């Protein structure tokens, strides 16, 4: 129990150290504070990996410094002849098994998180089909509403609106080349690949806006493919949806050619 408590303490101390640097603007050592459970899972895993990573980093760098400072020829007695040691089976086995144990532990925790948050879900409350194209995103809500988020750097792009605290399944489709949908505060990225559908989800726990970008080089406009996700309270969202339905409803007058869609 004591060891476990110490482990938890270490974890939370490391999390505090890392997150206290959050928001420094430009030099943060960790992701933005996550607002969706899958993002939180990744965040916790990142903190967990950081504990052995920081220990190993400091340990090895100190050892590297130590050997070149302590065993400099100028610090050795005159005429010093170093012992010629060809190896040591015990040591070599030890520093084979120790890293093995560390990476297996990291792999295990990673795999648990992978199974928990990266399986295609079936219990979603809402499905949005996200189509990537050169250069922008279309969000098809399935009820006739489509948000066209055309890429630009000149100002903010049209936000992708979701209700807060709602499990939204995202179904990614590529229509030309490969794009990758990434909002760091929500979760990892998912590629929109032509030819098959890819899945992710989000469940944003607070009202607000979060930014992201396309993460897969897709042509000259790659850098313009900004993403804004806006989480609204359910009532605001309902209002927004009604407005979209009204404005996007195909006007009945123009041509008699009944469109198939």
């Amino acid at each position, binding site marked *: 129990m004591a060891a476990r408590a110490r482990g938890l303490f270490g974890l939370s101390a490391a999390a505090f150290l890392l997150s206290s640097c959050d928001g420094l603007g*430009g030099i943060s050592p960790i992701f933005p504070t996550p607002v969706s459970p899958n993002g939180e899972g990744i965040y916790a895993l990142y903190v967990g990996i950081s504990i052995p990573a920081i220990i190993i980093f400091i340990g090895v760098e100190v050892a*590297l410094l130590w050997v070149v400072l302590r065993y*400099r020829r100028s610090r050795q007695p005159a005429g010093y002849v170093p012992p010629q040691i060809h190896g040591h089976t015990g040591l*070599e086995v030890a520093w084979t098994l120790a890293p093995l144990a560390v990476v297996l532990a990291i*792999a295990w925790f990673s795999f648990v998180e992978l199974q928990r948050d990266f399986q295609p879900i079936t219990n979603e409350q809402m499905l949005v089909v996200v189509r990537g194209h050169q250069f922008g995103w279309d969000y098809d809500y399935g009820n006739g509403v489509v948000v066209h988020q055309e890429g630009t*750097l000149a100002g903010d792009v049209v936000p992708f609106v979701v209700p807060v605290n709602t499990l939204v399944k995202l179904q990614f489709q590529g229509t*030309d080349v490969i794009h990758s949908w990434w*909002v760091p505060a929500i979760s*990892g990225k998912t590629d929109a690949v032509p030819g098959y559908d890819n899945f992710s989800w989000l469940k944003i726990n607070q009202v607000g806006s979060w930014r992201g970008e396309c993460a897969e080089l897709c042509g000259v406009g790659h850098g313009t493919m900004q993403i804004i996700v806006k989480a609204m309270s359910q009532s605001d969202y309902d209002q927004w949806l009604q407005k979209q339905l009204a404005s996007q409803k195909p006007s009945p007058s123009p041509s008699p050619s009944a469109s198939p869609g």
Partner: protein
Amino acid sequence: MAATTVLPRPKAYDDTFFRPISIWLTTTDHKLIGIMYMVTGILSFLIAGIFALVIRLQLSQPNLSVVDAETYNQLISAHGVTMIFFFVTIFLTGIANYMVPIMIGARDMAFPRVNLLGFWLVPVSIILYYSGFLTGGALNAGWTGYAPLTEKAYQSHSLGVDFWAMSLIVWAISGIMASTNFLTTIVALRAPGMKLTRLPLFVWAQISTSILLLVVGAPLAAAMILVEFDRQLGTQFFTTQGRPVLYQHLFWFFGHPEVYIMILPGFGMISEIIPVFARKVIFGYMTMVGALFGIVFLSMTVWAHHMFTVGMNTYVEGFFMIMTMLIAVPTGIKFFNWIATTWWGSVEFTVPMKFAWGFLATFLIGGITGIYLASVPVDTQLHQSYYVVAHLHYVLFGGSVFTIFAGLYYWFPKITGHLLNRKLGEWNFWTLFVGFNGTFLIMHTLGLEGMPRRIATYANASWATTNLIITVSSFLIAFSVLLFLINVVRSWNGGEIAGDDPWQGNTLEWATTSPPPPYNFERVPPVHSFMPLRDLRESGEVVAAEPEPAKV
């Protein structure tokens, strides 16, 4: 300095260097071919470095347009292709071409004319790639050239992709030739007594590198041929209607082992340099060899860790994750063995040793960030962000470039007969070390904050300061490389005379003159261990002789 005037200059190559160009075109001497490889590599390094500076200028502040987005995409592609295919791999092939036959006590490579052909395919490959610029634009899809962006539907304006594909096919053929030649040479032409268990670790590293390139060169050529089929014959392998992810599988089956093709020779050089300057025998020779082959095997089972966001089955992702993480084990063994080699040593902190330490200190960071990237959930955040750019530069710059500098400072005296200037070397090292870490350490944070790689510009003002620091530091790297070039030119033309064995080396290349005669050895020394020269020195058979003029 007085000594330099007394010692006669070794004349083996003095004639050749100034003889007409035809010598370079027709020589089958592995040493001249090695020099040509290395010079080609360094020239590529300079060109790709200039591209990097333009890239950094473009990114130094938000919304700049030093170059337009299309030019930017061509520049990042050319930077990556040139650094990876035409600098690191080519330079390392060159230094191995020069050193491997001498280190095993051979007169030349097993197939000298294949060696020459293999070299001349490299300029052909380079010219093919750069011809793309004359057709309206070179490759603009990054060095990985992901389909379908490389397909005709999105590239109607130029033939850049075609020239890139042809260039890489020629490059792969050249690499397969060189690898076959290395393996045959090492198997067949070892000096009497040079058992496999007595091969210098650099030669073992070259064996593992050659095996890798032999296995993965063909899939690269296959991927490029399929890209060409799509573009010129209208097939649908990787098009929007085809299977773009298949391209990624083929490319990364080459691409990940290629990372080790670029680092294993460096590991080999470090394993030569540390024992010499610590005056100790390498700790755990057999585990070092075993670790090399562990890496060779594992590196061919990890390619899909570049594809964790394409939507694979989570168990498949788990497999590639665990194989990737396992690479930390053999790499860790090598690190610990290098530290143990130095422990209780008598360390002379010369410039090659400093670069070796720069490599260890920085490559460690690349290795640790590699664990984060191997973890699938964390990778979905970090993938294709500036974190990856930082990671790969810690591995390839902190790894390959620092080891290349270490090897150059170590073997330059053997190749030219002159030592590189130590003072300039110190400046070279420290400016490179500071410039490199200044450029790439804070780059990790940009990725964590959401800056994707390969964007031509950005609007987010909070990234501006970090990017400016990176740009300034990148110019410090350029300054350091300039110091290096000055050092090379100055030292080659009249630097301190090295003599046969300036470092008290362990391996056979130090038994012959500097530079070695065309046939390498008048008499190949006896080999009783993996440190034959040291054995001779300790038994008193070899004298620290003043270099005699070689008889040609």
